[in-house]
Every structure is written in C-alpha cells, then in structure tokens.
C-alpha cells in the first residue's frame, strides 16, 4: 500500500491512495467519502439481481488501509449508507461487526444526503456528525456546494460528487476512472464504494485531477 501523491495544505499533509482514500498524516486520520453500504442489498430487495460481496470487499479494503497507515481515526464524508437499514437486517449486523473489529479506531460519519433517514430505523454504532466538521485548516463536509459558507478560508474536504474522468485517446469509448478532484480551496474525494457510479468532471483553471488506481495515483491534469 503506497501513496503516490502528497498534498501540502497549509503545512498539513494529505496523502492520496489508489484505494480511493486520503490520509491526513499529522492526525493519523483516514478520509473517505460515499461508501454507500447496503446499496446492492437494496437492489436485490427490489428484484434487481446484483450479487452480494462488494460491500464486504469495500469494508475489508477500508480496514486494510487503516491498519497499513496505522491510523487511529476514520472520517467518512457522508453517504455512509445508501438507504436506511433495518436493525435486524444482515447488512446492519455486518456493519456492526465491522465497527466492532475496529474498536481501537475512532469512526466519524459526517452525514450526507443518503444518510438522512438512517437514524429512523437503525443507527450504526459510530459517531454521527450532522453539519460540517471543522478542524482547521480543514472543514469536512459531504457536499461542498451545499455546505454553509462560514469560515470560507478553510480548506474543504468533501464527497458527494463521485468524480470520475475519462482517460485515453478515444472520446466516447474511453474507460472511466475515479479521481480526486483538487480545487482552489478544497478536495473532492472519489466515491469509496465500488458499486457506485460517477460524474465526469472537467477541471477548471488552477484545478487538478488525480486518477485513483488501480495500482497508483496518477496526476491527469
């Protein structure tokens, strides 16, 4: 597990990993966004035959990166769950077991739009944070465009967009890769969940995109 890109944000270091995760080195904190756990189960309940297994792989990948970087904290930038889960469902049990296995790691979820209904049925055993989480020089939020503008000098780390880019020569047939989207005063993380779609982003002036994976993080533009 290796980082290929290190961003310097006002003296703090953010490392980008091909596993679609970032690490705030000084605070030993893993940052991910949009895990959308429970998405394939929701599909199956609605008669769409998606095989099980992608959540499980996502969770073990997340645990692996936490261990490999010796991190002590995980911040999930929203859309932790794709849809509310029932407390007695197998997905809920799986999430609980996963959290239990990481009991020495502080897990914080900054709630996103998909998490809105989550507390109604069952609330995963971790710290929920409604609204922005401010830890200068950073502000952690789900959707950078919708969050409150106070403290706009802060560097915003967010998700929600699921940024991807097309690579290669051809126009329409080019494969899409998830990307980190570095903007003037913020960083948009790629969706961590593998079973999620994406929106093609075109970087503006002064912005960069970095392709996440499969083996390395690569600066595209």
């Amino acid at each position, binding site marked *: 597990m290796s980082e290929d890109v290190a961003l310097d944000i006002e003296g703090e270091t953010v490392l980008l990993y091909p596993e679609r995760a970032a690490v705030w080195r000084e605070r030993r904190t893993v940052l991910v966004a949009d895990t959308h756990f429970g998405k394939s189960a929701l*599909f199956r309940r609605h008669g769409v035959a998606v*095989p099980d297994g992608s959540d499980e792989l996502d969770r073990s990948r997340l645990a692996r990166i936490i261990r490999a970087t010796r991190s002590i904290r995980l911040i999930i930038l929203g859309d932790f769950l794709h849809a509310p889960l029932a407390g007695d469902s197998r997905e809920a049990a799986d999430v609980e077991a996963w959290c239990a296995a990481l009991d020495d790691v502080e897990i914080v979820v900054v709630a996103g739009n998909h998490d809105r209904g989550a507390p109604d049925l069952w609330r995963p055993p971790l710290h929920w944070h409604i609204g922005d989480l401010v830890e200068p020089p950073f502000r952690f939020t789900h959707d950078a465009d919708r969050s409150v503008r106070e403290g706009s000098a802060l560097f915003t780390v967010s998700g929600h967009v699921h940024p991807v880019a097309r690579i290669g020569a051809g126009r329409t047939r080019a494969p899409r890769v998830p990307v980190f989207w570095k903007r003037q005063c913020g960083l948009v993380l790629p969706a961590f969940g593998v079973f999620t779609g994406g929106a093609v982003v075109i970087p503006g002036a002064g912005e960069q995109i970095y392709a996440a994976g499969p083996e390395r993080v690569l600066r595209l533009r």
Partner: protein
Amino acid sequence: MWRASWAGESGLLNAGTGTGKTLAAWLGPVLEAPDEREPTGIRVLWVTPLRALARDLEAALHEPLSFLGSHWRVEQRTGDTSAARRTRQKSRPPQALITTPESLSLLLTYPEMLAALRTVETLVVDEWHELLGSKRGVQLELAAAHLRTLSPRLRTWGLSATLPDLPAAMRTLLGPSREGRLICAPATKRYEIEALMPPSVVRFPWAGHLGITLLPEVLRLIEGGQTTLLFTNTRSQAELWYQAIVSARLDWLTTTALHHGSIDAKIRRKVEDGLKAGTLRCVVCTSSLDLGVDFPPVDQVLQIGSPKGISRLLQRAGRSGHRPGEPSRVTIVPTHALELLECAAARHAAARLDLEPRRGITLALDVLAQHLVTVAVGSGFDAHEMWHEVKGTHAFADLTATQWQWVLDFITRGGSALQSYPQFRRVTLVDSRYVVTQSDLARRHRLSIGTITSSASVAVSWLKGGTLGNVEEAFIGRLRPGEVFIFGGRSLRLVRVRDAVAYVRLAQQTSRFVPRWQGARMPLSTSLGRALLDLLGDFGEHRVIDPEVRLLLPLLRLQEQLSAIPTRRQMLTEILQNREGFHIFVYPFAGRFLNEGVASLMSLRAARESPRTFAIMTNDYGFELFCEEPIDVSEAALRRWSSTEHLVPDLLASINASDLARRQFRDIARIAGLVDPGTPRRGKTSRQLQVSSGLMFDVLERHDPHNMLLEQSRTEVLDAQLDHVQLRQVLENMRDQAWRIACIERLTPLSFPLWAARLQTQTLSTESWQSRVEREARRLEKLAR
C-alpha cells in the same frame, strides 16, 4: 389463404406493398366468425412493429366492416392508449385488438386480460420481416407461444415483405415443429434507383462531414416535385438537413417537416396527417417512416448518403409511386464520392434481388428472463409446462436444461445457487407455481417491458409544459444549463434537467450541438459490399456502363495509379509509413461491424507474435491498423493473422480484450431487469436504484463471473455484431483472394477517410484536425483532376 386459414392452418403471406395483404389476412377471420354484438373475448390479435402504425391500421381494418354489415369492434392497445380505454378493454374486450410486441407482453401481466386472450383464434403478425432478427421478434415468439397455450386453436399468420429465405422466416414465427403454409404473391413492382449527379465529383469524405454540399440540387428537386420524402440514415443527419433546408428557403418553414423516432408521438402524428392531406412539400425523416400505410401525395423519395442495404433502399423507394404499374423511384444524394459507386452497386443488386438475409435470434436469455417474469406477474407458471412452451419456439429450441435452470434461478434467487444474492426477491415459488406476489415488483416489471429498444432517455420538455420528444441521457449529460442545442428542428436552450426531464426554452441563436443517438448507424450489408466489389472489378476490366461510375473515373484512376483497385478476386492492402507511424489499410468491403471483427482479430494475432499496441479504425469499406513502431508486413504474415484457424477462441480473446462485450451488455442488462429503464419522472426509490450497465458488468464479473448474461453478451458480440458465421465467410474470401500489397507514399482515395476518422478521435483540438484533414483532402482533389 382464406381456405388455409379456415382449415385452421397457420402460415406466412408474402406480397409487396399495396397488394392487399392486410385485407387478405383480415377478411378470413371476419367472414368466418358469427356476427356478434357483444363479444366474449378477443378473436383477432393484430401485432404491428410500430405503434405509430396502429392508428392507420385501425382505420384500414374498420373500413370493410360496415360494407360487410359486421358489428365487430376494432381497438388499439399500445403505449399511447389511454388508461380509461385500457380499463374498458378489460370488461368489454373488442373482437379485434391491434397491438405491438411490447404491449402484447404487457397484456400477459394482467390476470383480468388473460380471460379475454383465451378466445383469440387468429394472431396476425404484420411486417414480420421487421421484427425478425431482433430481440423484439424473440419477445413476440415467446408471447405467441404463450397465447397458443392459452388458446390451443390459435392460428398464426405472418405478413412479410420479400426475404431471401421465406420458409425460414415462417418457421421462426411458428416454431420449428409446427406445419405452416407459405403463400407468395409474385412481385411485380419495378424499381428505379439513380443518383443525384453532383456537378463536381471530387469531394473527399471524412467522418463528421455530412455533405450538405448538394443542398442547391436537392432544393431544386424538392421544388420540382409535389411531395418529397427525404430519408437520412441517422437522426442527427435528419436534424442537420432540416435546418439546412429551412434556412435556405424560409418560406418553406410551414410546408417542411421533420420526422424521427425521438420526436414526440403527437408531433409525429401531425406530420403524418400533413403528408396524407398533401399539405407538406417535404418531410425530412429517418427509418421512422420506412414502414406503414401509404401517403398517396408522395411522388419523390430522396435518400441522403449510403443506402447501406438493398432491402431497406427498396422499402424506402416503395414509399413513392403507388399507382399500379408505375415504378417506385428513389434518388440517392451522395454525401461523398464513393457513395456514387454504392448507388450503382445498389441498382445492380436490386435488379438481381440480392436481398439481405434475416435470421431469428436464438437463446437470448435476457428476453427469456423478462418473459418468464411477465408470465409470473400475470397467471404464474408451472416450470414443466413452461419448459415445453419455450422449447417449442424457434428462439429457444436449443435451450439446454442447464440454461433453463439458470434462468429460473436468476429470476427467483438472483443468480445461480452457488452465488450469494441475499434478500433477493422477484419471482417466488408458491404451490409449485412461479409467481410475483409483491405489487411494487409487478409495477416495476411492467415499466421495464417496453424497454427492449430504447436506451436511457431524457424527455425534452418546454418550461411551460409540453413534450418535444426525447434524447439520450448521455447527450444531455454533456450539456450545461444555458447551452444551446438543436432538436426537433428547433434551437433550444437547456434550462435545467430534473428527474429525467430536460427543460428547455426557444433560443435565438443556432448551435452546432446536435444530439447523437446510439445504435443509429447501420453497417453496409454484405450484399451491397459484394455488388461494390463487382463494380470495381468491372472498372478494372474497362467495362463501365453506369453513369455514376463514369463520373467517378478520375477518382478510381487515381486510386489505381497510387495503389490498386480491390475486387472480388483481389484483396488490397495498403501500407503507409510516415511521421505519425505505421499504417496498414485493408479493404474487405464487409460493412463496419464485420470489418471491426477482422481488424480486432488481426491486431490480436499480430500483437501476440510481437507485443505492440494497435489503434483500430473501421468504416464500411475497410479498416486501418495503426501502430507507432514499424512492423514487418509480408503477405504470409497478413494471411496468418487473417486465417480461419482457431477462429472462435481468438475472437473471444479479442472481444475480452476490447470493450465490445461491455457495450453489448447495455441492452442485455436493461431487458433482464438489471438496470432501470430511464423512465421520465421517476420517483425516489427508482432514483436510488440507478446504476449503469457498465458498473453492473464489473460487479458481475467480479462477484458472479459465471453469470450467463455475461456469457450472453460475449455470444451476442460473436453472433450478432461480429457474426462469426459471416466473419468466417469474409476470412475465407480473403484466403481465396490474391493479395495485393501496395506500399503507398501518400494517402489514397480509399485510405483517406479512415485516416481522417482516426485522427479525429486522437486529436484534442478540432481546429488542428480540421486543417490537417482539409489540407490532405485538397491535395487528393488536385491530384484527381
């Protein structure tokens, strides 16, 4: 035919347009039936491939009834039928119901309608040649088989235009083991195919160049006729030609109309009414007007660009000249020089009636899965009975027990028993019958039935309300609010996109954005490709009789002088080394898809011998293999790369290496219910269920690699798109040909379009591409003079 029909026989009736096919099939059942005022159920079910035809058909079927003093009611049941009418049809079914394959499947999901279907005596499948060879045809085969179970006395009659293998077409409709009667009315129609001769012939084509150069001549032709149908090959081309015509003749704005499959049905209907009434001077259209009732005022048919295939060209020609004894005439408007050659070739092939064959699709498991869910929603089914019903169709005669079990697993458990699909619910087994019990699942399934042909689409609507039609989601996705695009013949400014509706308002300025629709491009047919090579051979032997070819002589001589002429006996390969790298151009004239198959096969084998990457570019005539480093190309190497040995394994390997199977999965995933159709105004649940077929493909490959739908997408690429049977034929032809390898210094008339098309996909800036292509085109044009 009536005698056969009265004797309870089924069959296929083949006759040209305007010969009374419809009446022949209609009056048999009507005359035989007792006249009843209050029907107990439907007697005649009439299936038409396009719902746009249903209304005219209703009128045509209704007409003779009053003459006969019959009290039969004829009604439609299509996607356009109102909810009130649909409810009434449940309680008071008409004697005759006109429907489409999708709506027929939909009928099978309503338990209340099944009673009315048990009385059906005759199933008429109109324009069967249109459905044959498509998945909608398979959907109909399955629905017909189920109707036969519901109503064992059912007779099936297909109506079809001329096809090369009519007995096979009949067997596909009836099922292989069922006897049928084939009735052919001899074709007497004469066709005249000619080209609009351009004043200067030497214009060079390149991708994206739509050839509006002949606009003044086209305007003159329209002026000279009464009513003109201007056929184009794609919807985007139709939009561009419509714009060009009305900008050149502002006073024609009210008498010129646009008609294509993405324009709202109401608007299309208005255009059709205008055509019938003779108030329109010209309608720019696509295959949306290929079929259907005649428009008597139409006296002129123009075809923009390559006719692509003989059958389709004759069908379009048939839209003019309805008076008996009068020939049907079509004028081809070439958009580039080589299309002149296609015009002459089409004329020769049409004279020989060398029509394209159509074969029914087999083992489409996605359609089978959809059908099984359909029946499970309706009456439910017993696995054993259903197996026999399905095995009786042409499409699934070779279905294995393993495949059958997999499809049953797929709809009940999500996948094979070895895979994990927890909490999956769709079809359940209750008292040994497969049924769908939850109403939300039934509703979602009904929504997905109509989606065999459509890809995810977005409705285009005025801000104040009123729908203009629909465009593909991918196109709208690339536009930003405020940007202007052309649709339905208007300049529109995108205001916002919400819930699969793109809201627009009229824009003052014009735009270069025209929506592109996938799957709109047809490949050149093998029949036409053969005829083209014959013409080129005639040129080589100085036998030129066609005026189009005569006009092309400078170009052909240039090709001959710079390189050589490909013919049926001579396989031409051009090799060019320049600053960009190394180009190999090969010309099998097999149509775009087959050429792509040959190209990916050859590049795979070449790369296997010495590792390197090739860029592939194909068109209807040939393909280019491009690589940056030099490569040793001998005749022996070319023959090795194009050999027929290990064909299927190598093809599979090249499909896996490319994106082909993933692309093919788009349709399969939609039909099998793996991705939600892009229905306008979808609710929250449905939004949460959005997923792209590409993502689904990846997840399946990873977590359920033996999923038979993945296998099917590979098979479909192999069978349908690459058509490995035909591909083998192409390779065998190549093997038997003499190879002529020409080392060329500069681009030739044949290689130029391929080069230009590849360059376009590689260069980021449009300006530099355009200027390079134009420079090269001017050089060739100068040489040809």
